[in-house]
């Protein structure tokens, strides 16, 4: 190994935990966001109000505060959740709020005529949504959803404050024991950048595929 780069113990594990937090929260957040979008578009008023309230709270407060509440606050109420599940729960709720807004924006961008065409052939609201509107909404929302995934990857570094040993925490530990902070955090930063570069490329591929019909 290059002597200038200190061997960073636990680097691979840290990367794995970061990926676990980011990918799991994103996938769960997308499912949650999809459900919240459906709730916001449905005719049931209490459901709509609940969805709006959820988005307002989880988009309007810092993820660090949410994380602290889940990890340090909930035990006070008798609910004790281990660090990694706490982080995944928080990031899922946080990402879900944003992703539901991205998806809703996509649905609203689909022309009313598309609903008309689906409805005029006898499709129910749900079928029209599934077959006609959501596929188009997803295409519109892809850039915003991709950005959200990338932000979320970086936000997972917050989990270090609740003792999750992810990438940032590994760098911090390694830096403080060797006093080579520059090297440690440069490595950590480079790894985040690498992960997000791959995500960006994936997003572009997806955009191209979804955009094929419109070329």
């Amino acid at each position, binding site marked *: 190994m290059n002597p200038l780069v200190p061997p960073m113990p636990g680097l691979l594990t840290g990367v794995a935990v970061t990926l676990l937090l980011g990918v799991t929260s994103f996938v769960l957040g997308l499912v949650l966001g999809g459900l919240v979008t459906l709730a916001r578009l449905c005719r049931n008023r209490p459901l709509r109000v609940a969805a709006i309230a959820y988005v307002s709270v989880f988009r309007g407060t810092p993820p660090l505060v949410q994380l602290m509440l889940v990890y340090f606050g909930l035990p006070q109420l008798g609910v004790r959740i281990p660090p990694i599940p706490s982080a995944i729960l928080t990031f899922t709720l946080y990402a879900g709020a944003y992703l539901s807004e991205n998806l809703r924006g996509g649905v609203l961008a689909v022309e009313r005529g598309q609903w008309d065409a689906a409805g005029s052939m*006898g499709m129910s609201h749900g079928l029209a949504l599934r077959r006609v509107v959501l596929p188009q909404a997803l295409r519109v929302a892809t850039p915003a959803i991709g950005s959200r995934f990338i932000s979320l990857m970086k936000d997972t570094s917050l989990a270090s404050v609740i003792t999750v040993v992810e990438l940032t925490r590994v760098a911090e530990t390694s830096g403080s024991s060797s006093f080579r902070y520059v090297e440690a955090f440069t490595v950590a930063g480079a790894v985040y950048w690498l992960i997000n570069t791959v995500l960006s490329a994936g997003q572009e591929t997806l955009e191209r595929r979804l955009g094929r019909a419109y070329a």
Partner: protein
Amino acid sequence: MNGNVAIDVRGLHKSFGETEVLRSVDLTVYSGEVVVIMGPSGSGKTTLIRCMNLLDEPDAGSVTVHGRTLSYPARGSGRSRRRLIRDIRVRTAMVFQHLNLFPHMTVLQNVIEGPISVRRLPRPYAVEMGERLLAHVGLGDKRDEYPARLSGGQRQRVAIARALAMEPEVILLDEPTSALDPELGAEVLQTMRSLAACGMTMVVITHEIPFAREVADRVAFMDAGYILEEQRPSVFFGAPATARARSFLHLMTEDDDPRPGLEQTG
């Protein structure tokens, strides 16, 4: 034409907020007939055919399609009513003025979407029918293209094929040539002529007078939410009964439209 009623609307009223768009409209369309609806912009033509499909629900009146009647104001349970609405929508296919093709689907997928997901036909059967319909409208070689790559006239014919794939009782067309230049419009008119010749029941909003003269069994003239007259085309274009229709036709034929046939009217 046989004597079966395809669509019957009675006493339709429809308002959007304060605007009364339909004020007591009656219209009967028999199986195999072509009815052309004409009238000035804003007279309620689009709203009328949307009500025939129940895409817009009237405030009062009744819509009967293939012997199934839905009356307004709404009565009866939600569920059976919804089923009836769905049934009427399936049997009355719309070709929208703006087409509203599904941009994320290929031409063939557009055509077979309704048959598969609504009518629940087996896929191979739907595909075969879709290919046949596309061939019929002259688009057999475009089945795997996306709508964005087609010309306006080709898109219009995809929309017609998509409507036909529902095997509807009647097809409702909203100004199918208004967005096309005369040459592309001619392709579409030819397609509609051949449908009429096959006995397809059609309600067509159009201002193409030569087409209406040749193909329509009746012309319904709308103004301000009423059908003011309903005549055979030879009568309507030869000697319209109302002053409104006379002045409308006068304006239509005063256009600098060089197509033949227009100057014979009035």
